[in-house]
């Protein structure tokens, strides 16, 4: 940190100003500042859930809007995500220990077979965690067997699949068909996402829900498990 005179001293701000400042810092990808802000709010007795929701998730929601509108591009969004991660690392152990740690639900997510794009998936995973989901991330290049195994092992409330290539999108349909054949689909809502997808495609492959962006996907996921206000 420089000691220029206009530097804002985070701990001198009142709660509302600090949260607003954290949104700005998150937007600017300033990981250290976001961490410091998180620490200060916790120090002032804030509940970790509220720090997560009001400072971090809300900040990232704003980032998501400007990404969608073409104001921010991938590198900036990744810096923002990095900053959010820093804050989350501080909150995670507290959240895990807290009494009311009732998880929103389990969410298995992975990029489909043949595809190794994972930025969008990771962002969605982070926002899901922010929304209280226990996220099981299968990583990239997942054949149907991986999804089946994870469903069997973790009994998730939602399955999410990501694809960024025109050539790998159809594989989502293959997985959904297999789930249907095995009678899993009627109990397990499947969400799909990735830049080349749209609602029509999601409908065509019989997906439960299409998630256009990370913040919206987290909200939709909460609605699916009945945890949305």
């Amino acid at each position, binding site marked *: 940190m420089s000691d220029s005179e206009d530097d804002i001293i985070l701990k001198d701000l009142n709660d509302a100003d600090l949260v607003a400042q954290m949104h700005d810092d998150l937007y600017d*990808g300033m990981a250290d500042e976001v961490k410091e802000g998180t620490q200060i709010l916790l120090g002032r007795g804030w509940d970790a859930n509220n720090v997560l929701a009001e400072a971090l998730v809300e900040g990232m929601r704003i980032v998501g809007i400007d990404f969608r509108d*073409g104001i921010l*591009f*991938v*590198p*900036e969004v*990744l*810096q923002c995500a*990095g900053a959010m991660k820093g804050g989350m690392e501080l909150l995670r152990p507290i959240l895990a220990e807290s009494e009311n740690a009732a998880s929103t639900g389990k969410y298995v997510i992975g990029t489909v077979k*043949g595809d*190794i794009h*994972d*930025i969008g998936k990771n962002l969605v995973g982070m926002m899901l965690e922010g929304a209280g989901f226990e996220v099981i991330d299968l990583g*990239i*290049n997942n054949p149907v067997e991986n999804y089946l195994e994870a469903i069997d092992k973790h009994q998730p409330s939602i399955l999410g699949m990501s694809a*960024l*290539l*025109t*050539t790998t*999108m159809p594989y989502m349909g293959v997985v959904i068909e297999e789930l249907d054949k095995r009678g899993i689909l009627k109990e397990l809502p499947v969400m799909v996402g990735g*830049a*080349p*997808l*749209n609602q029509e*495609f999601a409908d065509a492959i019989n997906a439960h829900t299409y998630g256009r962006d990370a913040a919206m996907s987290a909200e939709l996921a909460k609605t699916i498990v009945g945890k949305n206000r």
Partner: protein
Amino acid sequence: MHSSTQKTLIIACGALAKEILAVKEAMALTDGVFDLKCLPAGYHNYPNKIVPGLEKIINENGDNYDRILIGYGDCGTGGGLDRMMEKYPKTERLPGAHCYAFYAGLPEFDAMMEEELGSFFLTDYLVRHFETLIVKGFGIDRYPNLKAIYFEHYKRLVYISQAPSDELIAEARKAADFLGLAFEHRPVGYGELASYIAQLAPKETADV
């Protein structure tokens, strides 16, 4: 008899402009065998701009041409390009999902992905503009930490070259080193782009 009176417009990705002209020259096609208009190569990273960009040019110029060749693959439009083209019967496009596939040849591209899914491809164009499009375009210059985030799952860089020179090969190798990937060079030439342009040639010269 080829129909020399047929007027053809090619609307291509800016990343193919030089290559389309090189193919034209190699086939000794006369000027006027087609007109060429390009969209910015940067649309690559913003695929939702591709369809509206093409449609604008088609609407402004389409009436003056008998045939419109679109110099794009699907290029991440998620089938959107094909859906748009259904509205314009004069249009056709390059085969496959993207330029890497139609340069290498569709089955050959699939084979390379089968061989190593962690392959990152560079064409002549991307080698020439690696610094601008990859290093700066993806913000690696501003945020060096992003290199590892982008390329974590990649193993090799495959330079699928059109008209490789020693210089281009050296540049491509440098790019691989920069990204920490193994380097391979596969001279694939112009692939399906050449066959595509060749349709426009008078019959006698079509297989140059």
